[in-house]
């Protein structure tokens, strides 16, 4: 355990040390780049503020990911089952990823208001795509011989899907979910910056014009820690889910 923990800690310590020295020696105005010590102080002093806003962002991210996973899985299965749908929907899905969210996010706020809905829409829009692509590829990679075998054993299309294709595509789908989790946090901040009254993205945006730079950086730290936590939590879930296969 100690052997696995010390390399990243060492790297972190060296980076933070260099950063501290750079800011303290006047290399940059600390209104632009706060020193690690200032950020640590802000983390402690603003802890309840940060936690309250993390809770808002965490809800957006959590619900947004659930929405994106559901949407992504349904779409992947739909375009796998029906060629017509694949031809009709795949280009649209790719196109949806080219929509500039920086423009779309404020428009959504005008449309549906300052609540959680525009945040969920933005997160789902960014995150469904990796889920669709990886799950669809996973389903597509099913051995055609396996389908033949299932047919000769008397399986219906649905049984063949449930017993062979879906479990075979599961690892790919989970990889897609991990990518989705990592980018969902960006989506949340983007959506909050377009119009909101709370959340870590909102907090950052408020802190900078108020010259509370350390607080903005503290919010970034909390956000990054949250993303890392989510990513590894999903990795853990993945091992539990797939671990049954090899044990």
């Amino acid at each position: 355990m100690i052997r696995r923990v010390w390399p990243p800690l060492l790297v972190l310590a060296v980076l933070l040390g260099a950063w501290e020295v750079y800011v303290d020696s006047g290399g940059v105005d600390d209104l632009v780049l706060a020193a690690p010590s200032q950020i640590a102080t802000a983390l402690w002093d603003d802890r309840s503020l940060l936690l309250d806003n993390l809770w808002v962002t965490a809800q957006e991210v959590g619900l947004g990911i659930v929405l994106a996973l559901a949407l992504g899985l349904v779409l992947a299965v739909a375009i796998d089952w029906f060629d017509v749908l694949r031809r009709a929907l795949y280009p649209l899905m790719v196109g949806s990823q080219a929509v500039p969210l920086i423009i779309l996010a404020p428009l959504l706020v005008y449309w549906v208001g300052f609540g959680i809905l525009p945040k969920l829409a933005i997160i789902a829009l960014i995150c469904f795509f990796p889920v669709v692509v990886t799950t669809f590829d996973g389903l597509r990679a099913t051995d055609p011989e396996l389908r033949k075998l299932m047919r000769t054993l008397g399986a219906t299309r649905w049984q063949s899907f449930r017993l062979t294709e879906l479990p075979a595509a599961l690892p790919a789908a989970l990889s897609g979910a991990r990518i989705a989790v990592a980018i969902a946090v960006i989506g949340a901040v983007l959506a909050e910056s377009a119009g909101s009254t709370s959340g870590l993205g909102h907090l950052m945006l408020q802190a900078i014009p108020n010259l509370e730079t350390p607080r903005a950086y503290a919010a970034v730290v909390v956000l990054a820690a949250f993303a890392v936590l989510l990513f590894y939590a999903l990795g853990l879930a993945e091992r539990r889910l797939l671990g049954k296969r090899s044990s």
Partner: protein
Amino acid sequence: MSDGGTSLQGVTRRFGDLVALEDLSFTARAGEVVAVVGASGCGKSTLLELICGLQRPDAGSVRSAPAVLMPQRDLLLPWMSALDNAALALRIGGRRPAAAREAARPLFERLGLGGFERARPAELSGGMRQRVAFARTLLSGKPVLCLDEPFGALDALTRADLQTWLAQALAAEPRTVVLVTHDVEEAAVLADRILVLTPRPGRVVADLPVPAARPRAATDDAVVALRRRALEALR
């Protein structure tokens, strides 16, 4: 054919310009083991898929009792245990996982797989995987088994072991069997009759009964003589 056999009359199957099988006729009576030998590319696998209803003939007719295919590769599902893989057809038949396992267990043990119930396919040797695949095929409950080069990917020693094992398994669980192989010796050891197919288009050039009683060894005089006749017919 409702008596558990299989019958093909004047069957032709084309893929574009390629004639895979031409005017092919043969009958396997219930309980008979028919080996189909021929060089690769003579439409042997197509023949099995026709019997199993996975393909339709372009001409002629296929009448068969329900038939199940055992493909060349074992195609075991890597995330299921050996017993679950064997019980796959029972799951498809609508049983719950636990009930399917229990129903599969006696046959699993009769086939000499006892002790490997919980093993994953990746932990099994090639020979053991083929045995599990055969158990899965038998448990489909269909009276006609179509075996496509079941031991093609195994080394010579394991293959000889499994041939003996299959002969015993079929003695205990009699079925109509159409066994496709390129190994004339395997055909002579296991089958009641050997059909020799020409390549492209596949036609029957010889239909050799195997006179010797079971069990047979590859070194029996009758088997050796038959092997020679089949090889001559292949040339």
